[in-house]
């Protein structure tokens, strides 16, 4: 197998090594092409990673379901009936739909998106007040600035504790004042602050000014009984959200005597749709980068072919001598093609190394930014392997051009040329 023919490699490296300037100039095109390809792909990846980081902590395959008013009369009920869920619905849905991974029921004080006045030492804040289960943290992760989020002990003991938003903290406390352990008052009942969260400024479902208290505490404190406002539902990764969304609605429609065609009675929001759009965007971006990069690479490889073509002419005498000394056309051809491959592969690696260096610098400069979606710009192993195989494959095809030219040189003509 010629690939393992040590002599061939020595011969190739010798030829390339003894003609350094020529070798370097030949490689330049591919080096730049590879730099461009890797930078483009790396940046696209960085952007994709950046978006992922921005939305980290939010379960992307999830939806929210709440009750609205009916728009169709059904089973003797008039239209415009308000749908109010019960806490038991959560268990019904969870047992009937195994694809649901997490279901976090929530109830809020006042109307939907309404606010309640929260007091503390004469300072007030108009905040949304939610009764929540700790599971909600698995769907929309809270970035806690201080303290902790609600936990199972809070639920079981119906503890009068709360987690407040940063905005709420600013309204209720003086700057720098310690909030953990302090009490705030909602509807005449005191809750002890156990945590402060920072709003997630990308997907903001809860608002900045909100107070979270345990669901069970909410039931007792505000006498909400078994009512439930809305549900945050995380669906297992492999199931599309709309499938589960329909199942949920079908079950709820039967339970609450809603007309099967009533589209408005149950409100829902599919979070995965947003993520799918972003994923589609970054995928298109990556595809485009790859496309542009590969064509740049093609141009680089063609440049190599071009220069090899010129050098074949320049090497006419050398090739003639080799032929006269017993080099068969196959050997001459192989030498030129392998030279093309080695040049391309080496240039590719050099370009790759340079580009990776540049990406590392970019990463060090911008990668840590919280709001700028550019994290770990680097190309993946499969991307690298595919570009490399493509590049080497192209170089074989394009190396054949000068190789055939070299074979057409008749030793007699080559030797006559003086």
């Amino acid at each position, binding site marked *: 197998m010629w690939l393992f023919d*040590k*002599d061939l490699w*020595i*011969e190739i490296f*010798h*030829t390339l090594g*003894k*003609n350094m300037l020529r070798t370097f100039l030949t490689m330049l095109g591919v080096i730049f092409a590879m730099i461009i390809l890797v930078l483009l792909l790396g940046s696209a990846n960085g952007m994709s990673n950046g978006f992922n980081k921005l939305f980290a902590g939010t379960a992307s395959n999830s939806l929210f379901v709440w009750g609205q008013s009916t728009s169709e009369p059904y089973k003797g009920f008039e239209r415009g009936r308000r749908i109010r869920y019960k806490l038991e619905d959560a268990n019904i849905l969870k047992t009937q739909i195994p694809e649901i991974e997490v279901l976090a029921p929530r109830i809020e004080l006042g109307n939907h998106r309404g606010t309640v006045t929260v007091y503390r030492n004469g300072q007030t804040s108009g905040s949304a007040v939610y009764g929540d289960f700790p599971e909600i943290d698995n769907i929309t992760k809270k970035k806690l600035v201080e303290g902790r989020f609600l936990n199972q002990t809070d639920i079981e003991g119906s503890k009068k504790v709360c987690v407040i938003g940063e905005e709420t903290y600013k309204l209720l406390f003086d700057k720098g004042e310690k909030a953990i352990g302090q009490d705030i008052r909602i509807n005449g009942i005191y809750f002890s602050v156990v945590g402060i969260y920072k709003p997630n400024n990308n997907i903001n479902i809860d608002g900045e000014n909100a107070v979270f208290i345990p669901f069970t505490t909410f039931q007792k404190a505000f006498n909400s009984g078994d009512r439930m406002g809305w549900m945050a539902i995380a669906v297992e990764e492999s199931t599309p959200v709309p499938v589960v969304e329909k199942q949920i609605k079908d079950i709820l429609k039967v339970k609450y005597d809603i007309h099967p065609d009533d589209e408005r009675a149950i409100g829902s929001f599919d979070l995965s749709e947003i993520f799918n759009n972003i994923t589609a965007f970054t995928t298109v971006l990556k595809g485009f980068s790859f496309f542009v990069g590969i064509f740049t690479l093609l141009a680089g490889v063609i440049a190599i072919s071009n220069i090899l073509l010129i050098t074949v002419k320049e090497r006419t*005498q*050398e090739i*003639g*001598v*080799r*032929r*006269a*000394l*017993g*080099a*068969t*056309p*196959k*050997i001459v051809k192989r030498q030129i093609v392998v030279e093309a491959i080695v040049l391309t592969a080496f240039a590719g690696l050099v370009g790759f190394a340079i580009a990776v260096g540049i990406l590392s610098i970019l990463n060090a400069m911008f990668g840590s930014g919280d709001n700028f979606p550019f994290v770990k710009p680097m190309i993946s192993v499969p991307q690298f392997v595919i570009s490399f195989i493509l590049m080497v494959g192209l170089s074989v095809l394009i190396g054949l051009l000068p190789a055939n030219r070299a*074979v057409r040189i*008749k*030793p*007699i003509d080559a*030797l006559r040329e*003086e």
Partner: protein
Amino acid sequence: MIEIKDLHKSYKMGSNVLHVLKGINFKVEEGELVAIMGSSGSGKSTLLNILGMLDGADSGEYTLDGVPIKNLSETKAAQYRNKFLGFIFQSFNLINYKSALENVALPLYYQKVPRKERQEKAMKYLERVGLKPWADHLPSELSGGQKQRVAIARAMAAEPKVLLADEPTGALDSTTSYEVMDLIQKINDDGNTILVVTHEEDIAHMCKRIVHLKDGIIVEDKKIEQVRAEQYV
């Protein structure tokens, strides 16, 4: 060793046909040192090219060491050249980015001789032409005579049946020419068959036989008393 019968060769030059070789018959025995002489256009280079399998004849027979040379593919021709023939050119034709040793080892590379053996053999032949200390030098660092000696070592490295020298002294001054001819004579003394194409009378007389070509036919073929080059060196 070499047997040629009724060899014809013509070239097409546009609408004209140039008949270069018009029926050459000749024979070379093993160990001969033959000079092929003739003015330019006499067909001597064409004859050498055909003998060297660099070109094919139109008609006629060519047998080399009992092997008929006819309708060779490029690959076969390359293999035969490598096995049977050693070339010495007027312009040396060394590969300029390879050292003297590497140049000499090149035919052995195409014979797939292992690297180490190749180096040893090449060194042996370089020593034989008196250039062992120059083994690592590039052709550009050698004088014309040294280059031709490297080329002779290269031609001999593959241990061919016949050495073909095309105006081997054409690019050299007379002293150096005699040095090269001295070397060629000594190689011939060891029993190697050598054909020298030349148009220089004194060089031809350093061979053992002169074949005179004129207008595509052999006009004279005579054995001569060899003039030793040694005395001029």
